[in-house]
């Protein structure tokens, strides 16, 4: 039984590595297609052929791109993310702080949104057809239908500009106390919670409702079980697979999909870093960011699979 889970984890890890390689190659080819290179971008309007050639030489950009890519890949094996073309800092150092920021934002959003979404989804399923259920359903449809930049911009205008309750920028470095932390994270977290919760609520509700129609839930009813017991003890454990999957998909958005929130709140995360990296054609940085997004996604999906398997005795 245990070795089964272990085997599965190992298999999933192997798949993760393969997928990662596919993504890295795909990103590499996409990046190679971009017009201009770091040297010409940095020189901008003054990018005369001689100047570009000189800078390219100075930046060691003359090697074929594929060679540089393979070199970077090789360095990765040793845990070295390479050196940024644009500013010659180690990529690890550039990403480091921002990665922590992204993880913090993702973590806090997760802590808020997952319990909230699961509670709403499960209670809506329990009270299926009630006013409460309809309200939750309509609200989640409403939220899912509004572009996130609207939510974010409105939040800034209301809470930062007019009410002045919260700062318009999320400068993570200024958090000295818990109150600061709450104030700084409030708006981005709320915006992201809006964005990712709706889908989780819908999926949770659907999954629980589906299991509620199984014979074993009817059996529980015929044993005299209360509604909450039927849902929590019988339906929920068996709906866990799809729910965890939906949660993982939603959370994967928090790693790379938060570019709009990062832009509006000027939050220094890795999505914006990758945008900057694309702007300067900074291959090692682009690759490293892409790798983080891909890894985040794969880890979440794998974790969801493993949770689903562990929660289901038939698959163990």
């Amino acid at each position, binding site marked *: 039984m245990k070795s089964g889970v272990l085997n599965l984890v190992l298999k999933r890890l192997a798949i993760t590595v393969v997928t990662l390689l596919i993504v890295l190659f795909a990103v590499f080819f996409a990046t190679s297609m*971009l017009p201009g290179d770091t040297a010409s971008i940095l020189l901008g*309007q003054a990018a005369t052929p001689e100047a570009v050639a000189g800078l390219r030489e100075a930046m060691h950009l003359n090697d074929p791109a594929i060679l540089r890519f393979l070199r970077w890949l090789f360095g990765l094996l040793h845990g070295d993310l390479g050196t940024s073309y644009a500013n010659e800092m180690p990529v690890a150092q550039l990403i480091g702080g921002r990665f922590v920021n992204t993880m913090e934002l993702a973590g806090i959003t997760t802590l808020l949104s997952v319990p909230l979404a699961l509670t709403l989804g499960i209670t809506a399923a329990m009270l299926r057809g009630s006013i409460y259920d309809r309200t939750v359903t309509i609200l989640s449809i409403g939220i899912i239908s509004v572009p996130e930049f609207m939510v974010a911009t409105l939040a800034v205008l209301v809470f930062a500009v007019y009410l002045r309750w919260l700062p318009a920028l999320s400068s993570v470095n200024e958090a000295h106390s818990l109150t600061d932390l709450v104030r700084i994270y409030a708006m981005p977290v709320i915006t992201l919670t809006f964005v990712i919760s709706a889908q989780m609520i819908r999926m949770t509700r659907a999954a629980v409702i589906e299991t509620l129609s199984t014979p074993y839930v009817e059996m529980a009813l015929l044993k005299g079980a209360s509604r909450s017991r039927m849902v929590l003890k019988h339906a929920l454990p068996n709906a866990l697979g799809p729910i965890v999957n939906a949660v993982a998909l939603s959370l994967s958005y928090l790693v790379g999909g938060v570019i709009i929130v990062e832009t509006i709140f000027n939050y*220094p995360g890795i999505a914006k870093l990758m945008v*900057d990296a694309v702007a300067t054609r900074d291959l090692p940085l682009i690759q490293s960011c892409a790798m983080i997004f891909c890894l985040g996604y794969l880890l979440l999906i794998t974790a969801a699979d493993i949770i689903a398997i562990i929660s289901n005795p038939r698959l163990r």
Partner: protein
Amino acid sequence: MTDKITNWTSTDDAMVENAIRRGASRRELLKMLLAGGAAVAAGSMVLGRATNAVAATPVSGGTFKAAGWSSSTADTLDPAKASLSTDYVRCCSLYNRLTFLDKDGVTQMELAESFDSKDAKTWTVKLRKGVTFHDGKDLTADDVVFSLKRHLDKSIGSKVAKIAAQMTGFKAVDKSTVEITLADPNADLPTILALHHFMIVADGTTDFSKGNGTGAFVLQTFEPGVRSVVTKNKNYWKSGKPYLDSFEFIAISDDSARVNALLSGDINFAASINPRSMKLLDSQQGFELSKTTSGNYTDLNIRLDMDPGSKADFVAGMKYLVNREQIVKSALRGLGEIGNDQPVSPANIFHNADVKPKAFDPDKAKFHFQKAGLLGQSIPVVASDAATSSIDMAVIIQAAGADIGMKLDVQRVPADGYWDNYWLKAPIHFGNINPRPTPDILFSLLYASSAPWNESQYKSEKFDKMLVEARGSLDQAKRKEIYGQMQAMVSEEAGTIIPAYISNVDALSSKVKGLEANPLGGMMGYAMAEYLWLEA
């Protein structure tokens, strides 16, 4: 437009614009400084109480937070590589130059005590004594030689390598004397060295992430593309300065985010405000706008050596099709002045006021297009965010064209790689030119037959001869006449349509005091941190 910016007149405008946006490096800043002296008049206008407050007594202390508009992982503290406004602001707070330009454009000594030369070819620079770097090391001649010489090293990738190339010999005569030899005489060397890239760094520095300079602030935090924090240099050699305890500079690339951050009190200063946001700023108390108009312009370039620009009637038609008033009013939201298709702005003493802007006349335009046989054809026009307001301008011109059956296909291309791939290359495209102090520079850079940035491929032997003649003449009146004629020629013959000169607006909290104009650019030539203070 708004009350706060109506109390100044166009005569106050100067040709040096404060926003060397996207990076003055691209524009070979040196050339802008060549004229020096009187040619560089007061460049910007500070409005409202900020202007009056100059006279008030400075107060020490406080943290000043400002936001710039560019955000890049390529942000650097190496002055030689500085390319964006954010780099200049940071370098100015950490390093000093040998000289700098004051608000009147006069060259003042900073780390140098004196510049002397008999033949303008060999220069002796005496250094100020008792200046130390942040790490405690004394400033010596070796540091200066190192700082200047490194621009010649190709592997550094200096943005001013070309300008620095005229310096052929460096010698540390003694601990505080440096001798610089030029390839050809140039009396403007002191002004050239006021350029931001010629900041003085410590001898042998290879890692610039520490920001070890002699400047007013000491580096505390630097996150490329995010922010930097610098704190007061207690041992700063300029007594009493700086006033601020610390200065934080943040990159907020999103326009509305920058304004919102100012309005919510998160920052004290937001550089380069989008005209669309001004209505909002107007409605709020406690904020001021600072507007600068100069020779910066976005122009529509029609290459004369390619179709359809090779048909003179097409170019003529386009000049009538451009509704300059509407561009100033709509695209620039009033923050600009109507241009007359030539690069010398009204702020320049050589400006020829007799060259009138062409009136918007769709009928004439239609006549010319018909004559060129191009009416009804779809003509691609390349615009990009890279050239300020070019998209809005293109849309306005496009709409005017649509009314008379001239189909202009506006192709918006990414800002990334625009200067490399489209500028100077596409048959019809937009460019953006930063101010240059003299007509000579503008013409040799942009309109001479051999000009490197000849946007419309304008070639005229007569024009080239006139240019050489004016450069060699010492007779001011004659020069003005020749430059006047040349302006008329460009306006009529070249394929560059310059509909307006663009103003730049920064927004700031009323608590910020001491802001003055500077010919080197906005934010007091990017060096505001050293001079500003916060009202208690």
